[in-house]
């Protein structure tokens, strides 16, 4: 009985303990729920949890501020430059900004794809003062949603550094500027110089040269054009260039903006042309990543590869990288040949609408729009070319020089399909799977295929 007498007491303590545990559990679950919802705004949260990313620049800026005469506050910068090379290049750039202005800059780096996936929530919650972003529809969209700060006044100062094409690419639907470009890179046909010399191949100027060369490469046991579309987006580059060659830049932009219809016979012609050229493409693109396709070019299994110049990152050593050269997509003999249009996506910077230190952020934009910024940035990341026309190009390597020449020779510059149209249409739920369905079955009824695309576009909510 003694232990019976004990039991109520123990039961009671048990109850109390249970309540405490329940309360604790509840509280932590509640906290978890709250942090769960902020976790979707990951850029700032994740970045502040990874101070190492910001540390180098913080240290640099701390050192710099000692030398700087007057410190005008500090800013924070949300960055998607998460690969080591661009990350260091950007840290160097912002350290120079701190040296020049005395404004401290903390960089919060987030993995590239994750930054993009969480951008909506990030900009609405507690974004950094400035953030890295892309020109084109993606920039105009956030400007139109009121999530970006108008920096037209900064453009009064930096405007002289940019051509009209870049100013247009930085302008929102309301005619104000919201974006400062840093660099861009062209989508081109890449090949190995030494390999082509050995085989006696010549750069094709027209599409018939291209197919003749392709036939020769096939005879030599090569895949004429490496191609990969497992991830859904690389095929967009091919669609863009064929559409711009056949129908011109204006039609392309109109199509992206929804002003032209996908059921237009002009679009049918693009897919017909593509189907005709497909025998020269790698026959099995849907199981390959662009990295694997680039390896085929580098390993001399494929003769050419149409991709952004970032394909060069796959060259494991400097000699191989130097052996890569490229040329613009061949001409199709249409009235739009003289446009020499290309996709040359622009990366740059914006100021968030919720910026705490707007003056500091604008000072940063002014610096990033000056020739100094690309000069410092491209020293550490020589895969791209400066958007700024007053930037120092004397240090360019052959790869950059070719890029700059091709971009300069293009009269019309598009961004890229998924940067020029609405993201809910371009993504994995839309164009990515439509293009894959075409590649799976290029001989399908194109009118039915294209009315499917138009039907999906029309089903999206008005913006």
């Amino acid at each position, binding site marked *: 009985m003694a232990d019976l007498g004990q039991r109520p007491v123990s039961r009671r303590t048990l109850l109390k303990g249970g309540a405490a545990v329940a309360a604790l559990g509840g509280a932590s679950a509640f906290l978890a729920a709250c942090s769960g919802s902020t976790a979707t705004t990951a850029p700032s949260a994740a970045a502040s949890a990874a101070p190492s990313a910001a540390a180098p620049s913080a240290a640099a800026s701390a050192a710099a501020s000692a030398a700087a005469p007057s410190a005008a506050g500090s800013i924070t910068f949300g960055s998607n430059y998460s690969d080591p090379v661009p990350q260091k290049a950007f840290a160097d750039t912002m350290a120079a900004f701190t040296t020049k202005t005395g404004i401290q800059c903390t960089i919060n780096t987030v993995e590239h794809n994750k930054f993009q996936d*969480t951008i909506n929530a990030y900009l609405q919650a507690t974004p950094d003062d400035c953030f890295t972003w892309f020109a084109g529809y993606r920039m105009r969209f956030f400007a139109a949603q009121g999530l970006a700060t108008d920096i037209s006044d900064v453009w009064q100062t930096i405007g002289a550094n940019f051509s009209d094409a870049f100013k247009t690419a930085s302008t929102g639907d309301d005619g104000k500027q919201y974006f400062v470009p840093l660099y861009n890179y062209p989508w081109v046909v890449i090949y190995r110089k030494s390999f082509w010399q050995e085989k006696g191949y010549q750069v094709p100027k027209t599409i018939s040269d291209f197919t003749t060369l392709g036939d020769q490469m096939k005879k030599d046991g090569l895949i004429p054009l490496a191609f990969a579309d497992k991830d859904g987006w690389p095929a967009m580059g091919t669609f863009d260039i064929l559409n711009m060659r056949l129908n011109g830049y204006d039609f392309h932009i109109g199509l992206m903006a929804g002003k032209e219809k996908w059921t237009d016979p002009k679009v049918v012609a693009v897919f017909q042309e593509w189907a005709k050229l497909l025998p020269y493409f790698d026959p099995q693109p849907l199981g390959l990543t662009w990295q694997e396709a680039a390896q085929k070019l580098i390993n001399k299994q494929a003769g050419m590869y149409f991709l952004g110049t970032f394909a060069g990152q796959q060259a494991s050593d400097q000699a191989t990288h130097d052996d890569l050269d490229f040329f613009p997509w061949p001409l199709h003999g249409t009235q739009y040949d003289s446009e020499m249009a290309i996709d040359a996506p622009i990366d740059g910077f914006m100021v968030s609408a919720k910026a705490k230190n707007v003056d500091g952020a604008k000072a940063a934009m002014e610096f990033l729009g000056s020739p100094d910024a690309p000069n410092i940035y491209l020293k550490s990341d020589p895969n791209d070319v400066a958007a700024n026309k007053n930037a120092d190009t004397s240090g360019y390597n052959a790869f950059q020089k070719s890029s700059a020449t091709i971009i300069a020779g293009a009269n019309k510059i598009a961004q890229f399909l998924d940067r020029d149209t609405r993201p*809910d249409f371009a993504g994995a739920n839309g164009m990515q799977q439509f293009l894959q369905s075409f590649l799976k079955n290029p001989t399908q009824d194109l009118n039915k295929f294209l009315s499917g695309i138009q039907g999906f576009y029309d089903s999206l*909510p008005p913006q």
Partner: protein
Amino acid sequence: MSSSSVPYAPPAAAGGASPSTGRKRRKRFSLLTRRDKLTLGLMVGIPAFIHIFLIWMPTLGSIVLSFTSWNGIGGLDKIKFIGFKNYENLFSNYPPFWPAFENNLIWLGAFLLIATPLGMLMAVILDQNLKGTRIYQSVLYMPVVLSLAIVGFIAQLMYSPNMGFINNFLVAVTGDPRWTASGTAIDWLGTPGLNFAMVLIAAGWRHVGYIMVLYLAGLKSVDNTLREAAAIDGANARQTFFRVVFPVLAPINVVVLVVTIIESLRAFDIVYIINKGLNGLGLLSVLITNNILGEASLIGFGSAMAVILLLISIGPIIFYLYRTMGKEAE
């Protein structure tokens, strides 16, 4: 443990003994003090709050959002009600929907009819005290400790057409370079249909081990005298298993069934890692993610799909509750 309670039913005996001692005490503590009430209130209230807040609110929220159009930007006042339009678009203007719906059912079928029976078979074989049974168990169980995302990475390394293990292995064995050459290689992940089968194999590899462990634990708890009795009655091995062991393991069977259904319906990571559910690998869970997350932010449209997935999930949930609640009512 619970399985052994079925033939002997000890909990009933234990439960019968306690009320007599409890009644005495109930007199002494018939009135709950204020503190007791508070404690009890907290104990019931907090879980109830959590349950409502974390389960019912999001569920009802999804259902409400599925009738709206919202891009996730701006306040709740930006949400526009558009009736059944999301559902109409889902069924008529969104080509990936039906293939994904089908894939979910195929996944469920493949797990129910192939992977789960295979896991059970492995468990039965390993229960025979084979030599080295521990090693076999470890080998089969190993993939279970990997997340499906990791299994997805491994699958890509195996299946890549030109650089993957399988095709290069075929070259090494046959000496024929066409196995990895573009155009003649088998494109395991790029061929619609085949790629889904290969994903099911990778996911099944993990699922078999999971079921094996669950079932093996159940088999170990079966009283050996039952088998001996069956043997004396002249039952062969198959009859012993299907007529005696399998029915005794009814509670485990339900767990295995429920686990299989849950695993099939929540399938997501492996496909998302491989190619975000493109090219014939679509699943409802991936489509929901593609629409709601990222820049797309078709929150109403994604919610409509989530509601469809909820409707599919409700069947097994009701079945499970019916089984467990029904048991308790007995």
